[in-house]
């Protein structure tokens, strides 16, 4: 869908308590436009809990429950079962979309057990992780989603471990739909939410959410950093359905050779949380390690793409 066809109605109300340039509210706007009014939310402890509702007012137009950290998968399973009953009894005409909105801390670390259980039962809801790669609300502590070498308040010289990949863990659950999204590609994100809405069962969407105070970049650069993440291969855009992964938008263009990978250095340099890789002196070793991992992934994907095209050429060739 083109931007001009996006619904005008705002289900996120301006004048919220989110920081200037917040990726959380930016993501909510696009998601809500795609999902529409007939949606019920379970918001898991995170920045969103805070900017969503300073009592007695709320910045969200949708019915919202503020839930405890570990409970995303469980509360949504319950909401979904309750909605099914209300439909069966004729109280509701149409089942609302049940939506969990959780941070990376609430997904990668604390909520993964409930999420995994619900996914295995194929409970009927959409789970969104907006991934700002740290516990931002409590002042930027490391999470399982924090990337290698990134500064947080408890990885002051840069994180020593590599991040895990919950979107791929959800693919391994065999659920009907998994997608990743980026703030810089709103039409791609909108389409993925609209697609997820049509499907029944557990659906997982993860949005990378560059956070100005946590990642230490100016508030005007939220979208720019999100775009660089995709262009450099640090964040990959895809959707997974029926056992098949399809790469989309910027990531697809790199794999198909229409655009080149931007050196990861450009992405790292745009953020203060990687500042120690460049001053007082350049950390060739760690920058190289990050670049090599990206190169390996894309070399494989580009090779597979070329092979497929080659096979198609052979199949399409007229018989001799």
């Amino acid at each position, binding site marked *: 869908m083109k931007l001009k066809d996006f619904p005008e109605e705002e289900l996120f*109300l*301006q*004048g919220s308590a989110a920081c200037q340039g917040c990726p959380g509210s930016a993501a909510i706007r696009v998601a809500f436009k795609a999902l529409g009014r007939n949606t019920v939310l379970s918001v898991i402890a995170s920045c969103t809990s805070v900017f969503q*509702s*300073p009592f007695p007012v*709320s910045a969200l*137009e949708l019915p919202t429950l503020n839930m405890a950290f570990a409970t995303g998968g469980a509360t949504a399973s319950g909401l979904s079962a309750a909605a099914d009953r209300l439909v069966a009894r004729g109280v509701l005409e149409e089942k609302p979309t049940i939506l969990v909105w959780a941070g990376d801390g609430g997904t990668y670390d604390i909520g993964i057990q409930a999420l995994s259980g619900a996914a295995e039962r194929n409970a009927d809801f959409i789970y969104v992780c907006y991934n700002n790669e740290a516990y931002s609300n409590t002042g930027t502590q490391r999470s399982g989603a924090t990337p290698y070498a990134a500064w947080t308040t408890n990885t002051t010289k840069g994180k020593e471990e590599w991040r895990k990949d919950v979107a791929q863990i959800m693919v391994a659950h065999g659920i009907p739909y998994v997608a990743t999204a980026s703030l810089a590609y709103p039409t791609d994100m909108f389409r993925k939410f609209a697609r997820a809405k049509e499907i029944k069962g557990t659906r997982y969407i993860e949005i990378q959410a560059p956070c100005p105070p946590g990642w230490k970049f100016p508030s005007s650069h939220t979208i720019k950093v999100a775009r660089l993440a995709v262009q450099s291969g640090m964040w990959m855009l895809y959707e997974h359905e029926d056992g098949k992964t399809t790469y989309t938008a910027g990531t697809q263009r790199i794999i198909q050779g229409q655009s080149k990978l931007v050196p990861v250095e450009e992405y790292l340099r745009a953020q203060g949380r990687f500042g120690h890789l460049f001053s007082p002196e350049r950390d060739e070793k760690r920058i190289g390690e990050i670049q090599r991992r990206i190169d390996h992934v894309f070399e494989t994907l580009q090779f597979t793409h070329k092979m497929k095209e080659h096979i198609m050429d052979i199949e399409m060739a007229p018989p001799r």
Partner: protein
Amino acid sequence: MPKRKKKEAEEIGFVTTLSVPSEGSAGLTGSWRVFIPVLDGERCNKCLLCWIYCPEACINKDIRINYDYCKGCGICAEECPRGAISMVKEEKKQ
């Protein structure tokens, strides 16, 4: 307190923990601004990028900015492909 909450208090004698949706849940967030986005309507081709990128929903589809709530983050100016928005230092309101 929003009208709906006042009514609730009158009707049932106490206030429930339910919040009600309202613009300006954190007050007039326009007061957070240091730089203010200024639109040059001549240059704008209504591509709607600033509309969808504004994290605060302060720009409407006619590309009018609501200065009551615009926090001055600068994303609209940074992302406008036509350079139609500039961030200008705002004189402090008294």
